[in-house]
């Protein structure tokens, strides 16, 4: 399923975003990067229809997002939120059951989704007693369990240790290879470099650059987006970025 944004702008109090004009191809990973407050999460919420653009339109699979019901949207997209409420006395199973609202719950798929993040043994644990990282992994597993074609993730590796970050990166690649379309915000530039097929770079709500990772993720654009002076260096896994503070 293809995601298209046409001349999308959004304004709330003194913050304005856009105009954004790009399309995300099916079966790709798109990363949105930029400083805190640059409009990354707002862009995700506009794509998901949680915020209404002031001008322009967002379409999924040629249907305007604003015209989709929540049920139709849930069949096309799943969302990993940056934060979720800690539901009262929910177990991991209860959290997963919520994500199975549309598809209907089945034990095997739920177990597989949790197993993909290595947490199937925690299925009957109280969600509130899990660590921040474990909760994050459960929300990623819940989005997988929802089984939508498009997966939108707001900083999916927040709170995760390096081992679990790698688990999630491998998982994202597997999902892309299985034909899913992934749109995510990330702060780890090396991970973006290794994972993403295309990149949107934002600063202060304005588009700095959009395009394929190889053409967009370069020192010139990164220097424009952050208050950091970047340079690249070679590693055993290819080139990587490092930056030093400009001030």
């Amino acid at each position, binding site marked *: 399923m293809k995601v298209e944004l046409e001349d999308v702008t959004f304004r709330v109090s003194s913050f304005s975003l856009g105009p954004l004009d790009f399309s995300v191809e099916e079966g790709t990973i798109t990363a949105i990067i930029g400083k805190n407050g640059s409009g990354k999460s707002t862009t995700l919420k506009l794509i998901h229809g949680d915020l209404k653009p002031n001008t322009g339109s967002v379409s999924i699979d040629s249907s305007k997002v604003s015209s989709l019901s929540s049920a139709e*949207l849930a069949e096309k997209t799943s969302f990993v939120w940056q934060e979720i409420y800690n539901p*009262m006395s929910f177990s991991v199973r209860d959290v997963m059951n919520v994500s199975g609202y549309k598809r209907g719950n089945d*034990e095997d798929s739920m177990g597989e989704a949790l197993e993909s993040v290595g947490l199937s043994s925690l299925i*009957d644990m109280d969600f509130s007693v899990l660590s921040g990282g474990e909760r994050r992994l459960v929300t990623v597993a819940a989005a997988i369990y929802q089984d939508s074609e498009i997966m939108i993730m707001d900083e999916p590796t927040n709170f995760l240790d390096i081992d679990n970050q790698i688990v999630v990166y491998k998982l994202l690649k597997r999902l892309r290879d299985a034909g899913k379309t992934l749109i995510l915000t990330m702060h780890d530039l090396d991970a973006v470099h290794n994972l993403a097929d295309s990149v949107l770079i934002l600063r202060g709500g304005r588009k700095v650059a959009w395009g394929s990772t190889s053409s967009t993720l370069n020192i010139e654009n990164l220097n424009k987006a952050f208050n950091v002076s970047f340079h690249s260096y070679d590693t055993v896994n290819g080139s990587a970025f490092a930056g030093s503070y400009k001030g």
Partner: protein
Amino acid sequence: MNVTENERVKAFVQRRREMKYIWIGFLFLLLIITILLSDFVGSVRIPILNLLEIYGSQIPFLSNFVPHGYTLAQEQIIVQLREPEILGGVVIGASLGIGGAAIQSIFRNPITEPYIIGLSSGASLGAVSSIVLGLTIFGIYTQQITAFIFGLSIVFIVYFFALKGGRIHPTYLLLTGVAVSFFVSALVALLLFTNINLQGEAFFWLLGSLENINWTVLYPVAIVVLITSYAIYLQHRELDAIQMGDMHARSVGVNVERTKRITIFMVALGVSASVSISGLIGFVGLVMPHLSRMLLGGSNKHVIPASGILGAIFLICADDIARGIVPGIVVPIGIVTGIIGVPFLMYFMRKLTGGKYEG
């Protein structure tokens, strides 16, 4: 995870799930026992054999084969006084418990209850107005019907004031409910202040009691509570999703505003009907959902029925104490629920939470 481990996890999960149904079954059994034992409580002692005969005489077909060794007075006490009062406790306790579970899910807030959306202040205004103004528009049931209409009306006012851009935000609804309740309570206070001779009658209603419930008022209220409780239960999956945030609920496919509308309307209808015949009974709607979550976990699939059963058990027991604690006097049930209920809650919170509400 290898196959053996997978099988072990599945077996564990199965056991946990079965345990929840066993708990609900146990609570239901406890409710039946509480109902039967409560028929013994009162100033007149009725032997168990006579009590069983009276029960038998009320069952169609069986009544022809049951000996009639009881007196007419005994039959009147059980059938016309104790049974409607106890079953009233079941209906009212269940509606408050179920309403509490649903409202706490919508607000994602464990210290809310059905009264927070303006129900109690609205019903109070209705009841006190009918007393103070001497209304007789609905005959002998004017007080109950005005309490019901005002309770429901104030919830509608709160709901429409809180509606912004077609959506209900929980914090805004909560603040609107509190603000409107304060305003309406001030009107109630004004009515009582200007009619000092009627304060006693109104005071008794405001503290709540099951004493005046009879079959005539119980039947319609029971039907309303049965229908609204079932309608709330049908929303249990949607309410679970809303507990994780409105945006999350929407992203998994829940029509959030429709769910809130249905739930608030059903809670308002059921609880307004209940308090119209009992007066204000606090504590049940706040606490029973917590006890249910401590026993059965957080999913509304179990919390809603368990809160209803626990609310019913608690209210019948509170009424037994209200009837039995001072011979010849029925203490208002609001006093009993506060004095007995709060220490009971504090004890269970320490024993059963196990860190669930921390962090």
